């Protein structure tokens, strides 16, 4: 059917599923990756991720394409990663809907769908990692961990290939490998929206049950009057970036924020006499916070941005409590500041966004081994005690490079350490779909191999029959 013979819906579908659109979208994706890479000269990798890839429209500054001495103003909007990804997904699904047809009928179709159901169930099981929920119980040799994961994905892919062969015959491989691509795209979407990444820093002899996300901060207001637990109010960074009065039920004072007073990365200098200092109370009286350049994505030192903000506090029914400087560096160096209001003391601090875990880790020992006679790192290991009162789990675990602990949906990697070598930093990733990329890759591989085999078999059959 020519395009002139199609109705409006047909024309739209033809355009959505066209190969030209595929090429254009892939070209734009390559350009977006190029621009995002250049932007990391000035911006942190996670800022670029949010502004270029995990958004529907990206704003690309002209200056990223020129020397930074040029000071070229302006920029232009461009489809962001999510928009391009969604368009590619629609393009893929529509083109397959138009070009791929079921070839099975009757019992073969029934068998095909039954096999497909089994394959999808196996794929889902592998992705939701029912096979490996707690790596501390896994008997697998750690060195074969990735091999096992690929085998699980490969097994699910093999079942799906049989289903596709029953349903689509000659095009079974094409359908399967594109299914793998769809899984890869959706896994990135779910990861960007649902996965959490944070750090757990523990010193030897310390027990820790919370993680901190060093990419975002929160204003923590803590009533510590109860000797057993702290009563915590945590205002997220997104609220601190706005100009608003934040009144929270249970707190006797209001926090006034000013969007212009939030510093993504702040440098502290001693306040000089005669210099205008916005802070009128607390540690900020002695320090002045100034905007500092954001840690860039090309910085190899692994620097972290240290935000700060000036906030005004005032009692809900009483006096102004003054302007306070709160910042990560102040918190790291001298802890929280004390605010007295409503007859109580509150500990106020800006800290990395925190999340408590239902389990705790106690660090027995951090070990940094070097090759004999050199400073070349050989191995980093954290010897910890995992303690989960809810599940009655108490177990000693070793976490070392490329051999994480997986527990309750979290993966805890050996990430860094304190320079005293008496403390460890674990990267804690909560990503329920971490198996999806493994499965997607194996499905793509099996789809490709299967398609080649089908063509080879067809070629051989024709050759033999001729």
């Amino acid at each position, binding site marked *: 059917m020519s395009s002139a013979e199609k109705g409006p819906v047909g024309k739209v579908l033809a355009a959505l599923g066209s190969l030209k659109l595929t090429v254009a979208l892939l070209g734009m994706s390559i350009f977006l990756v190029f621009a995002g890479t250049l932007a990391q000269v000035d911006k942190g990798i996670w800022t670029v991720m949010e502004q270029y890839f995990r958004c529907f429209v990206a704003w690309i500054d002209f200056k990223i394409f020129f020397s930074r001495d040029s000071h070229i103003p302006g920029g232009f909007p461009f489809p962001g990663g999510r928009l391009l990804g969604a368009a590619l997904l629609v393009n893929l699904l529509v083109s397959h809907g138009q070009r791929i047809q079921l070839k099975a009928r009757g019992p073969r179709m029934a068998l095909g769908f039954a096999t497909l159901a089994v394959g999808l169930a196996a794929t889902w099981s592998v992705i939701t990692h029912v096979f490996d929920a707690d790596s501390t119980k896994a008997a697998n040799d750690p060195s074969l961990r990735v091999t096992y994961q690929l085998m699980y994905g490969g097994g699910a892919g093999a079942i799906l290939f049989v289903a596709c062969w029953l349903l689509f015959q000659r095009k079974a491989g094409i359908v399967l490998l594109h299914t793998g691509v769809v899984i890869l795209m959706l896994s990135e979407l779910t990861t960007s929206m*649902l996965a959490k990444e944070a750090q757990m820093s523990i010193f030897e002899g310390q027990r820790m049950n*919370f993680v901190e996300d060093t990419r975002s901060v929160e204003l923590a207001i803590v009533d510590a009057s109860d000797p057993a*637990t702290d009563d915590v109010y945590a205002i997220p960074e997104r609220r601190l970036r706005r100009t608003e009065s934040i009144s929270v039920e249970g707190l006797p004072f209001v926090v006034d924020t000013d969007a212009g007073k939030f510093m993504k990365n702040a440098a502290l200098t001693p306040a000089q006499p005669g210099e205008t200092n916005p802070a009128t109370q607390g540690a900020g009286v*002695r320090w002045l916070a100034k905007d500092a350049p954001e840690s860039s994505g090309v910085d190899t030192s692994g620097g972290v941005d240290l935000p700060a903000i000036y906030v005004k506090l005032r009692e809900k029914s009483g006096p102004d409590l003054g302007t306070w400087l709160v910042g990560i560096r102040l918190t790291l*160096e001298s802890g929280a500041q004390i605010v007295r209001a409503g007859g109580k003391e509150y500990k106020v601090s800006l800290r990395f966004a925190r999340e408590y875990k239902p389990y705790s880790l106690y660090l027995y020992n951090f070990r940094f081994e070097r090759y004999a006679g050199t400073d070349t790192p050989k191995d980093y290991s954290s010897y910890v005690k995992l303690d989960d009162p809810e599940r009655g789990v108490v177990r000693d675990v070793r976490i070392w490079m490329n051999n994480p602990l997986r527990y309750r949906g979290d993966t805890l990697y050996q990430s860094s350490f*304190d*320079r005293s070598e008496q403390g460890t930093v674990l990267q804690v990733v909560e990503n329920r779909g971490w198996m999806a990329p493994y499965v997607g890759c194996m499905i793509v591989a099996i789809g490709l191999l299967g398609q080649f085999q089908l063509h080879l078999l067809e070629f051989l059959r024709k050759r033999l029959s001729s």
Partner: protein
Amino acid sequence: MSLMRFAALTTALLLAAGCGREDEVRHYKAPKDPMWRILGAVAPTPGATWFFKVAAPSDRLDFVKPEVIALFRSLRVEDGQLRWTPPQGWTEEKASPQREATLKFGAQEPRLELAVTRLAGDGGGMLANLNRWRGQLGLEGVGEAGLPKKLDGAATDVYIVDMVGPTRPAAGPRAMGRPQEPPPQAGRPQPTLDDIRSLFSFDQPPGWKENPQPSSGRIFEFMIDDASGSALVTLSALQGGGDLAGNVNRWRTQAGLDPMADADIPKAAAPVSFVGNDAWLVEAIGKDRGIVAIASLNSQFSIFLKMDGAPAAVSAQKTAFMNLAQSFKMKGRNE
């Protein structure tokens, strides 16, 4: 087309799941944060003051406190020297340039370390040292009322310090995995003292003698010894370095002067420029000891140039000290 519907539905559900909650103020009960603890003792003896200190996560020190107190109770002066009897299972390593001894204890590896240091005279004063330790724990300074209590049952005067605070002492203010911390794979060699010294150039005042091997933690040391008395000039750099009020009051206390209220601190410090940075000039001349110091304070890296000695010598050499300060240049800063 059913696959398209499934994909659209999944996407819509994911979008819905990801919206809204990030803006909410969270209110919850949480366990107390892990704390750090310093368990220490100060033992004044004729001509010197001894400091004993162990710092560790608070929970860990709870278990060993009785042993530590037993060690402090064993302190005694014999033949003019302070002696002690380590509890059973403790090991002792002898002097290093910074310490008189290091005592290792505790059943768990790595073992805890209790550092023993000895400073001449009053070691800068009980209150100044107490507040220095409090600062390391992230606690505010205290006045005379907060001075440590004397330990009962010891054969000599021993004052016990037991403090808990939110920040980690001893290894500087930087927490791990945080600001500018190198990743594990960095494995870079640390710069040597010579590397650091080569960054600086200066005009040495006449009559001053440079010590080519300065004490630990110092980059340069100059000795002055003339008719007015002797003094020592040091250049040192520290991560962190504290705030102006803490430094001013430490120097004042060392010089035998009363600490100042925070509001009066600006009166005791004059703004100057030092190695291309804004800095403070602080003068604390007491009856027996004088200190003139220039502090370039930065929360990441602070530089101190300090003259410490007999009050008359410090006063007489102040002009030379200021000339030295003005001549100091640092590569990449003011050179």
